[in-house]
């Protein structure tokens, strides 16, 4: 049954890819509940199904079978326009490669999600400024991504993920392109956001020291969850 207080309820999710005639199972019946305010690290080797699972969580990919409830709503079967709206309002993405728009200022990058929810002018600017302040980048508003360090770029990406006040932050290897010192800074930022703002964060990583920042660690192997530990 769906637990009412769960932010995310995953029930028997399966995902099968078709490579020509061959069926490749990526997820083979995953069940998982994540509560609001949790900081979860998903770990696993490449090919374990963790990326597929992230894509499904992020409403970017459809499960072949099973149900995905986000805030009690079954979202696995929604239309792609409805997905776009959920990605816009309920999910914030942080990627390994930062994925900022080039030749676009930090402020405008953070404003981007609000282009698609009808927020305008002053409100938009205000939200973007607040968001950039949360990641301590209030003084780099008009810098272009190529004028920022990797850590600063990732902070901009975090600010962009936060700007629409999502219920869930999905971070896919957010420290993969950063040195260890900057990685630690970004992870501390996530931790602070989780503790101070009560943000729910799901983090995919294959580095144990990065995963250590999370309160809960889930291991994937061959499309199944093999362990689920809370600190």
């Amino acid at each position, binding site marked *: 049954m769906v637990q009412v207080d769960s932010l995310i309820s995953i029930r028997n999710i399966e995902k099968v890819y078709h490579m020509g005639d061959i069926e490749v199972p990526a997820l083979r019946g995953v069940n998982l509940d994540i509560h609001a305010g949790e900081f979860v690290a998903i770990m696993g080797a490449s090919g374990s199904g963790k990326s597929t699972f992230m894509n499904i969580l*992020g409403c970017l990919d459809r499960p072949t079978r099973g149900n995905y409830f986000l805030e009690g709503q079954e979202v696995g079967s929604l239309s*792609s326009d409805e997905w776009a709206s959920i990605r*816009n309002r309920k999910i914030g993405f942080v990627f390994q490669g930062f994925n900022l*728009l080039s030749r676009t200022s930090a402020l405008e990058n953070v404003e*981007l999600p609000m*282009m*698609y929810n*009808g927020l305008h002018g002053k409100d938009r600017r205000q939200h973007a400024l607040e968001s950039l302040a949360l990641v301590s980048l209030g003084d780099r508003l008009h810098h272009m991504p190529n004028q920022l360090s990797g850590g600063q770029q990732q902070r901009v990406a975090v600010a*962009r993920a936060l700007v629409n006040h999502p219920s869930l932050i999905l971070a896919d290897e957010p420290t993969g392109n950063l040195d260890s010192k900057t990685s630690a800074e970004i992870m501390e930022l996530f931790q602070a956001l989780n503790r101070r703002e009560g943000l729910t964060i799901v983090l995919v990583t294959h580095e144990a020291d990065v995963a250590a920042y999370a309160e809960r660690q889930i291991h994937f192997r061959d499309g199944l969850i093999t362990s689920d530990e809370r600190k």
Partner: protein
Amino acid sequence: MGGLLTTHCSRLTKKMGLMTIRIALRALGRNKLRSFLTMLGIIIGVGAVIAMVAIGEGAKALVKAQIASLGTNVIVILPGSSVPGGVRTGFGGVRTLLDTDARAVMDEIPSVAFASPSLRSMQQVIVGNQNWATLVQGVSPEFQQIRDWQVEDGRFVTDGDLDSAAKVAVIGQTVADNLFGNEDPIDAVIRIRNIPFRVVGILQAKGQTGQGTDQDDTIMIPYTTMQKRVMRITWVQSIHVSVASAERMEEAQQQMTALLRQRHRIQTDQEDDFIIRNLSDIAQASSSTTQVMAILLGSIASISLLVGGIGIMNIMLVSVTERTREIGIRMAVGARSRDIMFQFIVEAMVMAAFGGALGILLGIGSSNLIHRFMEWPILVRPDIIGIALLVSGGVGIFFGFYPAQKAAHLDPIEALRYE
């Protein structure tokens, strides 16, 4: 509630539209040279069309003005050809057309406003020690209204002149200039075939006809004087008729045919001994020439816009591929397929419309240059400018559609991973 939602949405879309145009401008600005080269197709196409249409319209307006200078709603009745002994004469071979026919046409046909007999002959005109060969026309006072030709000084031929076959002449500007120079011609005596005529009026300048004939190189005298003293004939060479309105031309022509057949006692199985020529037919012929020209210009325009459009499509496809990652990012943060589609179509449209606008400037500029250096008449029509802008925007939408659709249907996961 529904209405409120709609107004909210439409306001939203409007703001979205403005913003999307801004984003498009910025995206195009990032590749200025490439955007410009892409627009060049449209710029040259639209520019060429604007210039060609301006020249064509200028020529058309000139022809129109020339035709109008011949008088509006004018019909000319000419004597038909006769076949004496198997040799066909040209028009005017028969001598059955009389001044009384002109009178009858004017009096008996309600749709006819004015009618004037006309006789023409080239004559050497002498004043003192000057002489000049010019066209002498014998007319009635109505000729002035038919040709809509004012006198600049003095008076025109009057009914009194007709009755007395007076030896008076009204001279055109060219004749006045050549025979009198700076002197006042009024009341001077000119000699036509050695007959002295008193100059009673000077006609206003009317300029050249479409064929280049100088209309002002003429002298008008009463047709009775022309018949009796100059040409010594009893018939008239043509009758000029002006019809009350353009709509009644057909009616007037039929009634004139019937009246003249009756007056000339032509049996039902016999052919007319006169020919009715409609000057608006000539106007129509010239307008059909310009129509062919317009079709030609139109096809050149469509081809150049097509080529320009293909250029835009090509660059948009490149742009979609280059910006796959951007599209992925936009989708991840909540852009719907139609937002992406809209963005790229607006970009193509802005590029095409901008090219169209530059093309309009180029077209106006080059037609002004042509006007200045080649002295061709030009006419830049504002509606053509509007159409050019709309069409080039439309070309942008049409050729931007496929690349935009390609962008909108990208898979966000793939797009985000694109290197």
